[in-house]
């Protein structure tokens, strides 16, 4: 099992001896990790190796079988609201409602997480959805759904980004601008934890920390 090295006291997010069991299969066991401000962490592993489970545990959506997740040294179950104030989780499902327009979807997502909604059109432009802002999301494609959800990243004030397969159904140019955004976010003192099966293009290998899940039973 791979663990990230170094144990400093100022880690933004850390997992302590996380164990995850799904369908009576051990996915990972006693996984400890430290994520600091400025890190870009890529979780790697084949399908079914527990990448999504790990991200859901880190975000607090799932409970680990054993172990704890700490935010700034405090267990996330004890500071749920403070942690969620500082967290942006983007899962497999984009959370976009087909009955609402692109702009309404983005505005709701921004407002729900306490961001202001004034510049939402500009953020839609950033994800190439200008001109679609009044279209119902159910008329848009899968990739455009993901883009609506990802537009939130451009205004997110949360330092911790947990992104599960953010590049799925996104075209090449979109991937490039997302990668640029991740680097900017890391430089601003945030951290990005992501899973992807694609190679990162513009993020240099030495900038990326890797967690490899390859537990074979």
């Amino acid at each position, binding site marked *: 099992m791979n663990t990230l090295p170094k144990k400093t006291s100022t880690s933004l997010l850390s997992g302590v001896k996380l164990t995850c069991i799904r369908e009576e299969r051990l996915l990972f066991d006693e996984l400890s990790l430290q994520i600091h401000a400025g890190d870009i962490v890529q979780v790697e592993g084949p399908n079914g190796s527990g990448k999504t489970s790990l991200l859901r545990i880190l975000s607090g959506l799932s409970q680990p079988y054993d172990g704890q997740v700490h935010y700034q040294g405090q267990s996330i179950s004890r500071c749920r*609201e403070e942690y969620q104030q500082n967290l942006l989780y983007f899962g497999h499902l984009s*959370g976009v409602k087909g009955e609402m327009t692109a702009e309404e979807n983005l505005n709701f997502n921004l407002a729900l997480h306490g961001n202001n909604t004034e510049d939402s059109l500009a953020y839609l432009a950033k994800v*190439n959805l200008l001109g679609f802002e009044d279209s119902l999301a159910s008329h848009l494609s899968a990739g455009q759904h993901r883009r609506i959800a990802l537009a939130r990243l451009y205004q997110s004030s949360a330092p911790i980004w947990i992104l599960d397969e953010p590049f799925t159904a996104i075209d090449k140019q979109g991937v490039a601008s997302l990668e640029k955004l991740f680097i900017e976010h890391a*430089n601003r003192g945030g951290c990005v934890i992501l899973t992807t099966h694609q190679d990162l293009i513009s993020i240099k290998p030495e900038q990326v920390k890797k967690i490899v899940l390859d537990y074979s039973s």
Partner: protein
Amino acid sequence: MTLEAQSVQSTENLPAQTNNPIPSSQPLSYRRAFMLVLKRDLTIAMRHKDDIINPLLFFVIVITLFPLGIGPEAQTLSRIAPGIIWVAALLATLLSLDRLFKSDHHDGSLEQMLLSPHPIFLLVLAKIFAHWLITGLPLILIAPLLAVLLHLDENSYGALVFTLLLGTPVLSLLGAVGVALTVGIKKGGVLLSLLVLPLYIPVLIFATSAIDTAALGLPYSGQLAIIAALFFGSLSLAPFAVGAALKVSTN
């Protein structure tokens, strides 16, 4: 993608974010978070009118079929009218419960709500209130009209409206607990009825008893007080139960 060039340009014009410290966000006040979710759910319901019309149509059809099946004798009908109206209201609510969390669970917006920096009970309460506005309120408005079809005793109309007004929110609140528990299950429909219907029975008993009592010209405030107690009890406890159940269901 004709928009490509245009949007690449606009990238440069946006408020510069690079190297700025991360701006802090203010969590919404409780009232604004409540209104935000309420408005969203009502918007979705308005664009998806089936959700409003289906339970209402079910309610109307069931009640209009009874006189046809039983016969038009006023005495028989007015005897069974309270029971028919309330059972129909109960089943119409049950029919509409599925929508409360299921679609949000399917498209991932439920996860986003659980991860938002607001107390879960508040968001849940907003969703339940929206559900009641969409399904409970139309039932209350149309029930007195349908009661005419069933020759409901004229002393009972007040009791009918009051029991529905206090009782239908209870149905939404208790139903939400059942939906939250079964939302992660593929075919949870049967389980949902089994979980929720026993909880509905007290409301049914006291509501029909109140309407019957009113028909005799007697005071029915006792039954109404018990339904009110059920309402306030479930209003204060159900949102927390729903929050806990949703956490388990998304685990």
